[in-house]
């Protein structure tokens, strides 16, 4: 049975479990709607769901792009410039010490109810995993490669930059990829939390309003759509990274005698 079939079986199992819980608890539909009811609502309100879904997706993607860009730049700067390490590292640590969700109302106040505040939230939540991952990779370059490179560039100007560009950065890409995978998993959280605090569109906004009107089935439909988007995004990013880094083995190869 291949992975897709297995995924379908798991999904079907979860749906069955869900239906079982509804039957066993006898909960009313405004507390826990059953899968059939949610599916019905999903199709009935498809246009709204799709429209809001696209907004949230756009926020996530923009946040990913921006967070990755700024994160990669920060890590490269810290990894290359010694003084930068002393000044930027504390900033990096502080950026994670403050719970990002606590900043959400502030961002909405500054950037408004539109997409900007949500993109900012997603960016903030992505920034640390990406930066930390990439920086770790840059700092752990195989010393043998650095030795070899130093003998090849001895006495030349800009040797350090060449070594950064041709050895340290490519060597750190797998670590960046790890950080990016984590970032992809948490990005939706940033977008949705931003929407909950104050928004005019998006799946989080939809969920909030459906909840307010006791339209729990619509809330579930929006939630499941969000889960689907997050899942699809993760697999897409993972596949993309594996194609972009073809030399990285799936598993660490065992050390074997030549």
């Amino acid at each position, binding site marked *: 049975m291949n992975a897709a079939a297995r995924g379908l079986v798991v999904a079907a199992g979860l749906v069955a479990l869900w239906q079982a819980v509804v039957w066993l608890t006898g909960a009313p539909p405004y507390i826990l709607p059953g899968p059939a009811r949610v599916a019905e609502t999903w199709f009935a309100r498809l246009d709204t769901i799709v429209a809001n879904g696209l907004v949230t997706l756009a926020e996530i993607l923009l946040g990913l792009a921006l967070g990755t860009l700024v994160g990669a730049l920060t890590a490269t700067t810290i990894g290359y410039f010694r003084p930068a390490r002393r000044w930027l590292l504390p900033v990096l640590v502080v950026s994670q010490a403050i719970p990002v969700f606590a900043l959400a109302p502030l961002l909405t106040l500054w950037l408004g109810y539109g997409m900007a505040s949500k993109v900012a939230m997603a960016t903030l939540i992505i920034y640390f995993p990406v930066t930390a991952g990439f920086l770790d990779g840059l700092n752990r370059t195989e010393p043998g490669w650095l*030795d*070899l490179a130093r003998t*090849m560039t001895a*006495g*030349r100007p800009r040797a350090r930059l060449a070594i950064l560009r041709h050895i340290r950065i490519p060597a750190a890409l797998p670590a960046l990829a790890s950080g990016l995978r984590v970032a992809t998993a948490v990005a939706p959280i940033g977008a949705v939390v931003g929407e909950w605090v104050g928004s005019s569109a998006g799946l989080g906004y939809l969920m909030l309003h459906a909840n307010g009107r006791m339209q729990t089935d619509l809330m579930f439909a929006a939630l499941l759509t969000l889960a689907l988007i997050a899942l699809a995004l993760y697999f897409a990013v993972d596949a993309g990274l594996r194609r972009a880094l073809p*030399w990285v083995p799936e598993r660490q190869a065992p050390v074997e005698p*030549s």
Partner: protein
Amino acid sequence: MVQVATEISRKKRNDADGDAAAPGAVGVRLESASLDYDGRPLFRDIEVTLEAGGFTCLLGPSGVGKSSLLRCLAGLAPLGPGSRLSCDDGGELAGRAAYMDQRDLLLPWLSVLGNVTLGARLRGTAADRARAFELLDRVGLGDHADTRPAALSGGMRQRVALARTLMEDRPVVLMDEPFSALDTLTRHRLQELAAELLRGRTVLMVTHDPMEALRLGHRIHVMAGRPAHLDGALTMPSPPPRDQTAEDVLEHYRELMERLRRAMEATP
């Protein structure tokens, strides 16, 4: 502490097999060198001479400082104050030595060709692809130019490393146990290949295998003691690579083993 002054020689050696030092061969001399490791002196006032165009082998017990000495020559470790490193043509050694390690140090994201031309890439110059292909052919990997290192065996990867070292085209080549991680047959083949391809260059090879030294080296030193010193060179005038059963190899094998035994006793 014994300071042994080794002879300064810049003579070009010629013999029937045309094993002459290449024109422009550079001799290297290290004097009064000291290095500490972990707060303890590794060597003090040590002297090493690499004969121009000659193959010098360095043996000794583990931990005596052979690799450290080689790394100092490669510019990878700083020598203590008072150390004097000079080349007999007056130039600097930095930038004129190629380095080869026990590990192949091939970058996994580059192809074999990319790895061989790594030096040019790092220095921002155009790589001489024709020459790279020629070198790959000479090490027997002409068909694998586009392969990634992960698909090659250990012996093949070390051959790529050898091609990369030759691509650098440096007068001095520093090798740290380059073949010790390979199986016996592959090691023998690579030893012969290296002897052939490095002919005429000034080579320093650190090895723990006395037979390897006797097969490849013109001059063999044993490093011993703490702080370490070098003994006088055991010279082998015949052109390398020599057969294991060659007369001079067998003749000197016992002496070399004896020196090594004494070195092990002298080094705590």
